[in-house]
């Protein structure tokens, strides 16, 4: 493989250098003026001043580009894969901040060190087809298709179509690594050079009947009802059509959950390798299987990859630890019913948790239509008898949702600080607080924790 350092190749044009300088200055200015994190606008400047930068910079990675997309698990899967590659001595570049639209990707490429041999980038589903064309990845990892931000994407099928278009647009030789437990996604993926990953159905999981947070369970080929031999999360599982011959397959990289201990971790077995993951939840079994499959496709030994995964720790917002009001706590990002469902399962399995804050906002980044909270399995929280506090800009709607799930919340407070205080007093001595928050609600919680003298946020990433 060509190992010429990136700086000696396509990216060294004078125009790119000038554009990069201007873009960096923009980022620095943004950060200094406090106008933003400075991760996206520099990319816009860069692309304006130097058209084709993304194409040129992507082509300059000696060991190519890997793209991760899909509704849930992009950030964690990409991050796991980078951890594995790093442990194997491959220096990687990426968009760790999760800024995953074209301009964010351009910014990340701009900041990529010349010594990075490979880029692992997470890409937003809608931006995916164009970025696949531009970056010509050697591997494309597709996690799943769930309802998410419907007022932006409109329909689940639109998301599935973006992923299918991206697979069609991939260059010859590109390997697709896709979730074999997701019927809508797998149906499109199996037409390509694909490696499947999945999670063996859980013992005791409902094998029949529809789940509130699942996508419509219709055969992706003929539209008739799917029957499930087992499920893991929402509509993910082993399915077969009741009318035609469509059926999902046992994936090459299938994780079996050996044991699970709430939020502190999960033990999975993939192709004979037992892996103690430092983060809990079935969704992380999927992320680990995806990362392991991708690493294997990239030539990393499975044994080494499995070992590296044990060292992995979560990134921004995907379960951070904090302490507030004398109580320990965990902060979880909640984006859609399926993602929220697995977090709730984790929270109720963990005996340390004494109270739960549910914070929902409705800014563009959260999705303005919050109907989906009615498809979240809050009934499980209520059944566990955990006191809840409603928070976020839509605290009042959360309160109604919790009431209809079984029990009215013990407090309603749009402000995170007040909500945390109420949760702390409801949690009981020595018990922890779990916070489930949509994107901007999570930012508000973080801000409150950072500014509060009685609170501390540990970035465990």
């Amino acid at each position, binding site marked *: 493989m060509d190992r010429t350092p990136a700086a000696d190749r396509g990216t060294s044009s004078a125009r790119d250098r000038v554009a990069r300088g201007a873009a960096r200055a923009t980022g620095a200015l943004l950060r200094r003026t406090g106008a933003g994190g400075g991760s996206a606008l520099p990319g816009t400047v860069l692309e304006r001043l130097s058209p084709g930068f993304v194409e040129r910079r992507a082509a300059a990675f000696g060991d190519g580009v890997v793209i991760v997309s899909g509704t849930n698990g992009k950030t964690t899967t990409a991050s796991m894969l980078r951890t594995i590659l790093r442990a194997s001595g491959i220096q990687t570049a990426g968009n760790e901040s999760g800024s995953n639209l074209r301009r964010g990707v351009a910014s990340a490429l701009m900041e990529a060190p010349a010594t990075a041999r490979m880029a692992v980038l997470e890409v937003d589903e809608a931006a995916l087809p164009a970025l696949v064309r531009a970056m010509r990845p050697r591997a494309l990892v597709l996690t799943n298709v769930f309802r998410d931000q419907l007022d932006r994407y409109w*329909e689940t099928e639109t998301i599935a179509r973006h992923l299918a278009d991206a697979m069609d647009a991939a260059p010859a030789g590109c390997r697709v690594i896709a979730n074999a437990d997701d019927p809508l996604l797998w149906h499109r993926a199996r037409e390509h050079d694909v490696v499947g990953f999945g999670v063996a159905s859980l013992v005791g999981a409902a094998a029949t009947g529809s789940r*509130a947070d699942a996508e419509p369970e*219709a055969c992706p080929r003929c539209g008739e009802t799917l029957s499930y031999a087992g499920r893991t999360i929402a509509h993910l599982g082993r399915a077969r059509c009741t009318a035609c011959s469509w059926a999902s397959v046992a994936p090459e990289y299938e994780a079996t959950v050996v044991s699970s201990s709430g939020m502190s971790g999960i033990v999975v077995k993939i192709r004979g390798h037992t892996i103690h993951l430092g983060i809990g939840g079935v969704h992380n079994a999927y992320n680990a299987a995806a990362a392991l499959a991708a690493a294997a496709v990239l030539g990393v030994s499975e044994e080494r990859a499995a070992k590296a995964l044990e060292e992995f720790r979560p990134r921004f917002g995907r379960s951070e630890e904090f302490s507030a009001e004398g109580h320990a706590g965990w902060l979880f990002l909640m984006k859609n019913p399926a993602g929220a469902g697995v977090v709730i399962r984790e929270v109720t399995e963990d005996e340390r948790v004494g109270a739960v804050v549910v914070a929902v906002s409705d800014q563009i980044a959260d999705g*303005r239509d919050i*109907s989906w909270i*009615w498809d979240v399995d809050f009934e499980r929280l209520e059944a566990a008898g955990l006191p809840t506090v409603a928070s976020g800009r*839509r605290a009042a*709607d959360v*309160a109604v949702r919790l009431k209809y799930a079984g029990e009215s919340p013990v407090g309603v407070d749009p402000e995170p600080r007040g909500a945390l205080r109420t949760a702390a007093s409801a949690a009981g001595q020595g018990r922890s607080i779990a916070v489930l928050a949509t994107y901007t609600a999570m930012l508000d919680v973080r801000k409150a924790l950072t500014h509060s003298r009685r609170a501390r946020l540990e970035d465990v990433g």
Partner: protein
Amino acid sequence: MSGRGCDLVVVHLYADLLRTYGDRGNVLALARRAEWRGFGVRVCEVGRGEPLPPKTDIVLMGGGTDRVQEIVGEDLLSRGGELLEAAAAGAVVIGICGGYQFLGRRYVDARGTVIEGLGILDVETIAGEGRIVGNVRAEATLRDERFELIGFENHGGRTRLGPDARPLATVPQGQGNNGGDRTEGAVQGTAVGTYLHGPVLPANPRFADELLRMALAERLGGEPLAPLDDALEEAAHSAARSRRR
């Protein structure tokens, strides 16, 4: 459930398919609000090829994606008679978003293909240019009761009412049925359609209760529904009033 057995049968039609916008919340609102008043409630999810249970009081049909609505279409037309019969027997039939369009006479898609509806509501929907998306505030009238509705709309179709249906509401804020005549939703007998998500019933308890009163008319014998503590619902409702479009 109360000791009186089953007073109210609520059918969530195609619950496994038409449920894109939290439609389960509408079913929960109806069921809980009846249970809290001591009525025995049975919620049935009815899928393709399954008959409605006997003595259905309420049928609720939500919205789905285009693909799913296509999948449902055939089965739905085959149960037109069954639904009309139930409605004629006094069952309340509620259609939300895509479900509302299905209750109408027909839907004409972007390519001009005509998809026949159930004709329970005298309305017709034509695919429009661009989607109507945003927060809505509406003034509703149902069985001479007037109340405010808040919700979120997200639809591509433009719906117009025929002479047999009357609008459920007018829209001081939002686009409603078609973005032209300021109407939202439709009512005809015991059939009600609306484009509002939210889901619409939990955040609009008066609307939910009006539908329950219609469904329980005989059992109530003219008595009003017992009042409930709606402090949380009212708070959510008033918070929505100040929301921008």
